[in-house]
């Protein structure tokens, strides 16, 4: 039979339901892939092999007993380390939480377990989701499966790398300013940031409460929709969780595959998110995609969103402000590491300070200081207050745009995957990388990234971002599935089938930064 790990979750689901393959076999295949390639990729911070196989055996037993389970029962999944898991360490990529095993599961984790998915382990991320490259993980960076010398995006580089290196068919991510979509773009995978409030945040270690949203990381739009259906919906434990009844995202994705699904769809191109500042190959693939869409019957409309210009500035006030408060709880009193000051008295303030000094990395400290400053008396109105006003203006830009078009599109990121170290010395350059994805978080609207080809100049994946009005996640999936089919038809294959074959290596000593694949140039 075909290589199990290359199958989509939807295909695995079919085989599992008809019992032509067992969940134990599927799980073992993915654990084998992790063992073979993760030394190089470093997508995982924790792999729970035994627990995964035991859970898989239980699903197999239930199916054997004739129980009818959900479509994804028995399908493995990787969990971003920002999510609380009762049986695995949950560190959010930070030293300060090293080894911390929460006494509870995040709501999304609970839902994934209840749906019979098999948790393979926890994936790497920038510390507390602050970053666009995983270089800020306290546990070392994740490597892009397309080129080990390059970043896998961030903060959810681990989840994106896990699915694009076939270590897992599905993963969960969290997206505060692009942490699902940008890694998806640079690894050739699919990532969705749902409508704010569409998926519970309970148990997701908070970065910026008003921006964070948990979502699916997959290789196909349908897989993302299937996973969205599992994790979405109201959660009374999250006060910002919407009480709406949601349509099936999987049904929406399937509807997008119908003939003529793109006919008459009004597609808005945001003037402010195209043109200058985008890598040539990124811009080229975007233009080609618009041409394809047009040919398929979609109507391309240029849209101006003038306030988007201020999105990054507003974002880098709101996020640090909320983060500075959210991260105050890391004080060594109730959980996490405790570090005593080297000399002087052991007061609670001094132990807190020493712990935070030793436990937080440089980017976290930078943002806590920024946020503390932005919230300080005398500065609040000028910084946090103004940023909130910009947020309102951006929401109005979206409202105006969506009164004219059904969806908005842009490249998911200005460039393809950059090299390690390229932007570490320049926080502003790192922050600007999120220019395309941040507006959706500020407005709370859903966004998706799916692969739209490889940049000719470097052979690396380029992502298309699609945005829909708030609560119209289903539209994202039907349009996304249609675009995905259109692009793949034009290529004659999936993008990830052109990903380099990763060297299968057993554990080896030393850091794995060398290029460990055989080919990179796929003429897509």
């Amino acid at each position: 039979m075909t290589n199990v790990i290359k199958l989509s979750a939807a295909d695995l689901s079919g085989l599992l339901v008809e019992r032509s393959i067992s969940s134990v076999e599927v799980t073992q295949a993915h654990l084998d892939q992790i063992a073979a390639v993760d030394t190089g990729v470093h997508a995982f911070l924790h792999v729970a092999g035994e627990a995964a196989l035991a859970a898989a055996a239980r699903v197999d037993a239930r199916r054997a007993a004739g129980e009818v389970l959900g479509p994804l029962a028995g399908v493995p999944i990787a969990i971003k380390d920002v999510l609380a898991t009762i049986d695995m360490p949950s560190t959010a990529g930070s030293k300060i939480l090293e080894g911390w095993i929460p006494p509870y599961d995040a709501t999304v984790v609970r839902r994934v377990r209840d749906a019979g998915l098999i948790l393979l382990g926890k994936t790497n991320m920038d510390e507390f989701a602050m970053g666009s490259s995983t270089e800020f993980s306290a546990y070392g960076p994740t490597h892009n499966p397309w080129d080990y010398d390059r970043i896998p995006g961030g903060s959810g580089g681990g989840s994106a790398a896990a699915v694009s290196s076939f270590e897992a068919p599905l993963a969960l991510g969290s997206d505060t300013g692009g942490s699902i979509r940008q890694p998806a773009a640079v690894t050739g995978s699919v990532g969705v940031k749902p409508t704010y409030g569409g998926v519970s945040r309970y148990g997701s270690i908070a970065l910026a409460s008003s921006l964070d949203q948990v979502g699916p990381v997959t290789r196909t739009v349908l897989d993302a929709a299937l996973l969205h259906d599992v994790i979405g919906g109201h959660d009374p434990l999250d006060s910002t969780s919407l009480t709406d009844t949601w349509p099936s995202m999987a049904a929406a994705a399937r509807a997008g595959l119908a003939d003529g699904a793109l006919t008459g769809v009004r597609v808005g191109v945001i003037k402010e998110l195209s043109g200058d500042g985008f890598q040539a190959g990124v811009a080229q693939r975007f233009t080609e995609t618009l041409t394809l869409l047009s040919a398929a019957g979609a109507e391309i409309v240029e849209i101006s969103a003038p306030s988007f210009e201020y999105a990054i500035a507003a974002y880098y006030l709101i996020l640090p402000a909320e983060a500075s408060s959210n991260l105050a709880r890391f004080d060594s009193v109730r959980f996490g590491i405790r570090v005593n000051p080297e000399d002087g008295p052991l007061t609670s303030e001094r132990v807190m300070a020493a712990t935070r000094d030793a436990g937080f990395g440089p980017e976290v400290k930078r943002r806590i200081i920024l946020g503390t400053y932005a919230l300080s008396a005398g500065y609040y109105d000028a910084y946090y207050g103004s940023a909130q006003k910009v947020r309102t203006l951006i929401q109005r830009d979206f409202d105006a745009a969506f009164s004219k078009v059904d969806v908005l599109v842009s490249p998911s990121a200005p460039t393809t995957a950059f090299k390690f170290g390229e932007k570490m010395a320049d926080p502003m350059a790192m922050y600007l990388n999120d220019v395309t994805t941040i507006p959706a978080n500020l407005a709370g609207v859903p966004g998706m990234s799916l692969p739209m080809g490889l940049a000719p100049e470097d052979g690396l994946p380029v992502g298309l971002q699609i945005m829909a009005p708030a609560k119209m996640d289903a539209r994202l999936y039907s349009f996304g599935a249609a675009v995905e089919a259109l692009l793949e038809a034009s290529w004659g294959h999936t993008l990830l089938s052109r990903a380099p074959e990763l060297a299968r290596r057993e554990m080896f000593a030393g850091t794995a930064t060398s290029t460990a694949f055989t080919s990179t140039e796929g003429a897509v």
Partner: protein
Amino acid sequence: MKKAELMDYDKALELFEPVLGFEVHVELNTKTKMFCGCANEFGQGANTNTCPTCLGLPGGLPQVNAKAIESSIRLGLALGCEIAEYSRFARKNYFYPDTAKNFQTSQYDEPIAFNGQLTIELESGRLVTVDIERAHMEDDAGKLTHVGGATGRIQGADYSLVDYNRGGVPLVEIVTQMIEGGEADSPEIGRTYVAAIREIVKALGVSNARMEEGNVRCDANVSLRPRGSNVLGTRTETKNVNSLRSVERAVRYEIQRQAALLHAGGTITQETRHWHEDTGITSAGRPKSDADDYRYFPEPDLVPVAPSREWVEELRATLPEPPAARRKRLQAEWGFANLEFQDVVNSDLLDVVEATIAAGAAAQAARKWWTGEVARLANASGVSADSLVQPAQVAALIELVVAGTLTDRLARQVLEGVIGGEGTPLEVVESRGLAVVSDDGALIAAIDEALAAQPDVLAKIRDGKVQAAGAVIGAVMKAMRGQADAARVRELVLERAGAAE
């Protein structure tokens, strides 16, 4: 702790005008905490009523307790406040180990209730209207216990323990405007104001209102303004003054302390102060400046609270009679003298006396039993009178006395039996086989016979010559063949003769 230099109170008032302000924290008696489903209970094992949310664990999120919102609105209405159409929670950021999240979820510029008024009546009959700036909702902190060191305070302690059971318990903080013109009554205003708040929250049923358990806590702000000046003095904030009497004492102490300091050319430090119940003094806490920066911002994990006007009106309709009005009405209905009524109120027995009267007892009898024997027994065992016995039982007891089944002395024994869990007064009478009652019956027959036989003695007794009773007592003792308690016989003789001793 040294007692500071104090100025004579009258002299202090001569030189300075006291300006007051109070922050009263009321712990609501909701079943669960403000932002999570943990039980809101006092006295459980340390850290047993906790969850990821109230422990501030990574990933924990708050959910608003709807009952707490309702209680806060009712309290706001009872304080004559306007209820906000749109109200938000805000984070008050500061690091302290008893605050699990290292921020308190409170309200800042958008409180649930604001612009209220409360008129209180002092013992002199003077009415003082206290303006309420706001009543806002917030969560309580955990409880720190400092171990080691002599003072039980953090200074000098070897280590500290934290119990987060109280962390996240719903609070309403009621903040007054500045109270000027209190003059010499200032300490009494403090006590009476807090007593009035306590009465209101009790009447509303939104708090257990036990100051000794910290259900109602008062921070008292005091500053002095030199006579003839219109510039406010620097204030101190005496924290957690946890009895009505202490509020009065603490305000008085601060007036005298600040006056002495100012008069000697010193300056007041803007600071929090600790109240020491045992020594009756305050001591310096931490400096507190108006520039303390809590970096307030709207709580992004909670949606705004926007109570509909219909709901607010529904809640307004559920408000009980204001305690002050109720007191006036009850005193008139019962016909109590001022002192009698004050006794009931000050002993916190208004509710039980009312219930006892409602159960059929005469007003004076109900008052007498509660403020007398029940209060004495409660005092002896260190509990509150209303926790000792049900009003219905007291009413039943009084009924037995009125019916002549029990004398006061016997009734006291029966009361002890009732309190001891032996049953209703009637059951106690039976189970204790109160033979005394039947003995009394026999005695009374003998006494009535002896009195009838000596009408001249009866007349003398009725004229107040109680020593004449000796002749009757002798006759009765003889008739009973000495098997009677002479003292009891004497009591009954006088009772049957209708003499007052």
